[in-house]
């Protein structure tokens, strides 16, 4: 297949748009939460200011090579996830570097960031980081399982591994979305989505809503700046995959913004209502509720 070099600047343009969108969306969602709590909340541009401040810290401590590579892996996971899936369907410019078979690559990248983070945080040697890693990896593994099952079911249904083709098959009317043609797969995937967004009830890994202790305990200044950038990119990239697989994809940027915002708000709505699960409770919850839905979806397809 041909590789056109013009795709690279277009992909970087997508990355730039998504980074800004992610930062503003994150602050916007926090502001919504704050307004619901009858206070003003952070300014919309706060994420940018935090990023500049962290980058501008004059000193930093390193614990070794893997400590340095941890945030790099995490950011590579987020960027890779974004760049290999088509963002805007039908647009030559914003299809990024997607190719046939990019569904499996997307699955890989979703987990890659957490793994790199775990290795880096383990190198830092802080006991809080070690606790956070054990919790995070076990929860992430069990949350990935229904998503993988849903992905298999969808690819069986559409007989293809290319996300672009899956989006193409969903065009037409709203009733041809996977949401309505294969509801069990979508249910399993949305349950897994709640688990991987790191919001209540599954936020025992990083307890409050920003990047605080847990694995990132020893991370500071430039390392933290890298991870905050990832924090802006990664959820959006994951939601792009969900949108493409289950909710019909987006044919233009406004539709993209609307759909991403609505899917993000699903996790926020669930998050503000429920308290936190312990790790073994959340693993049990995934295995009892989400995995059977995924298996059922594969069987029924």
């Amino acid at each position, binding site marked *: 297949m041909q590789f056109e070099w013009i795709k690279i600047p277009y992909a970087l343009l997508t990355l730039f748009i998504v980074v800004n969108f992610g930062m503003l969306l994150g602050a916007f969602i926090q502001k919504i939460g704050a307004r619901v709590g009858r*206070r003003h909340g952070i300014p919309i541009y706060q994420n940018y200011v935090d990023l500049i401040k962290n980058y501008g810290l004059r000193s930093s401590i390193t614990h070794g090579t893997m400590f340095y590579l941890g945030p790099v892996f995490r950011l590579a996971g987020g960027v890779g996830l974004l760049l290999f899936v088509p963002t805007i369907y039908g647009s030559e410019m914003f299809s990024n570097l997607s190719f046939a078979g990019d569904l499996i690559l997307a699955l890989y990248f979703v987990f890659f960031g957490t793994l790199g983070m775990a290795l880096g945080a383990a190198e830092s040697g802080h006991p809080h980081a070690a606790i956070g890693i054990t919790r995070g990896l076990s929860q992430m593994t069990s949350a990935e399982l229904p998503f993988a099952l849903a992905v298999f079911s969808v690819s069986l249904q559409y007989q293809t591994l290319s996300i672009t083709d899956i989006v193409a098959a969903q065009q037409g009317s709203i009733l041809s979305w996977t949401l309505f043609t294969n509801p069990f797969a979508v249910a399993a995937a949305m349950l897994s989505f709640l688990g991987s967004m790191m919001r209540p009830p599954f936020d025992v890994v990083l307890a409050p809503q920003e990047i605080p202790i847990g694995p990132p305990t*020893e991370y500071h200044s430039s390392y933290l700046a890298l991870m905050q950038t990832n924090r802006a990119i990664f959820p959006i990239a994951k939601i792009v995959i969900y949108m493409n697989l289950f909710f019909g994809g987006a044919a233009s940027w406004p539709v993209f913004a609307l759909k991403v915002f609505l899917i993000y708000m699903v996790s926020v709505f669930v998050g503000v209502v429920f308290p936190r699960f312990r790790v073994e409770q959340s693993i049990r919850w995934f295995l009892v509720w989400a995995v059977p839905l995924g298996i059922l979806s594969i069987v029924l397809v």
Partner: protein
Amino acid sequence: MSMKPELLKRMVKGPDGVEFEVEPLRDYYCEAPPTVMPAAYSKIVEGLFNWARSESIWILGFGTGCGAIEMRPLMTPRFDAYRYGVQWRPTPRQANLFIISGYLSTKTLKRAIRSYEQMQNPKYVIGLGSCTVNGGMYWDSYNTIKRLDDYLPVDLYITGCMPRPEALLAGFEDLKKIIRAGKGEGANQYAERFDWYKANQKQVIHDWDMPDYNW
């Protein structure tokens, strides 16, 4: 005074059976003293960084004294410090501002020094309450320090016993002005007069079982 047994020099047997000697205070820390970190190359960049630092102040979540109770209302909707860009961070690695809230006993001073030295340059210290100014209510106590800026470089004092949350917010505004003017150089001051600060600290902390510089 005797040190805790895990801090003494001793022979340790590793998991693979090899015996080796370990001296925790020397091996687990580096012995370099703090260095003065200069500002960025050009004034515009430093101005941008100072603006960003003033708009996003991350406070270390370590309530050293009774003033910590005045920090809690700032997280509530009534006073809402988050709209000023102020957040609380649990770890000194990620924090910029250390608020010494109230009296500082010598026992807490040791931990406060350890936390302060782990913070990254540039960092700021606010002394909250009259106990940090001249000893306050505990002026004749055998256990608390009377003058905070002999032990840590202080950027701003907020007086009161305890100051109300509105006073703290006004103090944050003043601190922002100080940072934006480029005067928030407490970390560099600590590095320059390190020996003087260390001598003062060791004079009141009698059981020093930490390295001299805990970075």
